[in-house]
């Protein structure tokens, strides 16, 4: 019998293996989140909202109370819960389409109101569930089903810099970072600090996670890893962008 790496305690074992495609980054982000929930001991207070898109597959992922909402509407649902019961730790989990396109007004306004919730947004540069269409985060020149000749920034703009935008519109006390599934230890640290910021009542906390979609990227393992590590980071800088306390060391 081979030794399996330990799953986070807050994972729901009877729904594993999970439903994401092979090579998908969601499982890694949710592992980092699970570890953060375990380390902070908030499994009893956390409420998890997932969006529509691939993130919806996480609706029974954790042993944590979970609501699957509509496309783009996870931020207001979690905001509503947190406002109604501030003792809860609200986690809104979504993709780049849900957060930066159809739900961008909710993200902007929740950030501007400094809602005491944590938004975790998985950026895989396209719409995965619907079959690989162009997203706000699609890289210049990247081919998708709706940009089959490559994204032309002249016609469709440049990729959304989500964390930079959130950092610009939040007041001091907010926590904003961009992690990557290529550095899981760092990503877990960012998510943990984001949740701690909520627990401490600091303010809005937001983590974007650079992630992978070999199914729609049509990449093998090496190309997948190369894209998330080398290509995406040319445009999406990994690190903490806004912190309430002292900065975290690089690669920590």
């Amino acid at each position, binding site marked *: 019998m081979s030794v399996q790496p330990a799953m986070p305690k*807050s994972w*729901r074992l009877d729904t594993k293996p999970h439903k994401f495609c092979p090579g998908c980054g969601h499982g890694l982000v949710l592992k980092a989140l699970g570890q953060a929930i375990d380390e902070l001991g908030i*499994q*009893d*207070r956390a*409420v998890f909202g997932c969006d*529509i898109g691939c993130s*919806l597959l996480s*609706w*029974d992922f*954790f*042993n*944590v*109370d*979970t*609501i*699957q*909402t*509509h496309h783009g*509407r996870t931020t*207001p*649902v*979690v*905001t*509503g*819960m*947190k*406002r*109604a*019961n501030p*003792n*809860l730790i609200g986690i809104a989990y979504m993709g780049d389409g849900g957060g930066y396109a159809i739900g961008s*007004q*909710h993200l*902007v*306004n929740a950030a501007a109101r400094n809602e005491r919730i944590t938004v975790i947004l998985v950026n895989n540069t396209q719409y995965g569930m619907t079959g690989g269409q162009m997203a706000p985060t699609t890289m210049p020149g990247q081919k998708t089903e709706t940009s089959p000749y490559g994204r032309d920034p002249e016609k469709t703009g440049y990729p959304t810099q989500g964390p930079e935008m959130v950092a610009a519109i939040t007041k001091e006390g907010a926590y904003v970072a961009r992690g990557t599934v290529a550095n899981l230890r760092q990503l877990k640290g960012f998510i943990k600090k984001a949740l701690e910021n909520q627990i401490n009542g600091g303010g809005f906390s937001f983590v974007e996670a650079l992630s992978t979609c070999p199914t729609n990227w049509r990449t093998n393992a090496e190309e997948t890893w190369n894209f998330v590590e080398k290509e995406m980071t040319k445009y999406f800088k990994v690190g903490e962008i806004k912190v309430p306390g002292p900065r975290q060391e690089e690669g920590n």
Partner: protein
Amino acid sequence: MADKPIQGEKRVFMTGNEVVAYAAMAAKAEIMYGYPITPQNEIMHYWTRMAPKYNREFLQTEDELSAGFTTLGGVLAGRKAFTATAGPGNTLMQEPMSMAEAMRLPSVVVVQQRGGPSTATVIYSQQEVTMTTLGGNGEGLRVVYSTSTHQELFDYTIKAFNTAWKYRFPTFVLGDGYQAKMRESLTMYDPEERGIELLPAQPYMGKPGTPGVDRPPSQYRNTYNVEEELYEVLQGYFEDYAKMAPEVAEYESFGVDDSDLVVVSHGVVARACKEAVKELREAGVKVGYFRPITLRPLPEKQLREAAEKSGRFLVAESAQGQLDRLLKEALFGAKVEMIPMYKPGVGITSEEVAARVKSVMG
């Protein structure tokens, strides 16, 4: 801190929007989420003035999508939450309410109808009947009360919370700009002192104990993998709805047993119809009055009886046949002539109704 804005009974003279705010307080609503749109704004204005005094909360959201979805978040967290909207806001509200239908989340939405389509007027109409009864990508699994007076705005706003939390279908109070802005006398009261039990809200999420350790996690979804799975879930919902329908359906009528024509209307238009029919009956005209109070579900049995007895319905509404369409569906196969009196987006007076009845009856 007092927790009740209304002690005992109180005769008041106020606008409909103010009435709704007081009624929501009296119903022990705990949090309102809202976005400004005329003519419902004063519901928020009065709510926000009273809220801190009675330990209630308010959140002004970025749009009606957010107002609806934050309301559902409040419900999930175990609070009696509600929102209010109108017109294009009601259009956006259909998305969150379709989620409420899919997940059986009790929720209360007060709609003060304005003119349509589009931005149209901020004044008045009955043009949100189709959308409020059947909106969203679903099957109309909701309850809609159409109020006619300020007293009813008070009574039915309180009742809407109980209906929503008892049956777990989204519940709408359908008013209009006239009711919202007009001042009128009514008696406000503490429902519990009148023996009306106020059903408590229960948390869906964040219940006591650690999920997976002390209890199973509460996990709610609105996405299904296969057709049969959805079909099965919906059959249960339809069964619940059919069982509920006769329990919640309400109407008001008189003179339908001995009439050759029945005037059918709802909401504020029913006031004009009621007055016209009363006067005509006093003058010996054989005309009746029927008003569904619930537009969804409709009081189908009583409607059919009234139709069969009189053989003729005059349908008066401030819309181009939105009520009429609902009636025709409920009355399919009944031998009744449907005579329209449509004034979309415009009020209807008792004199107009009386004149129309006379011209129809000759």
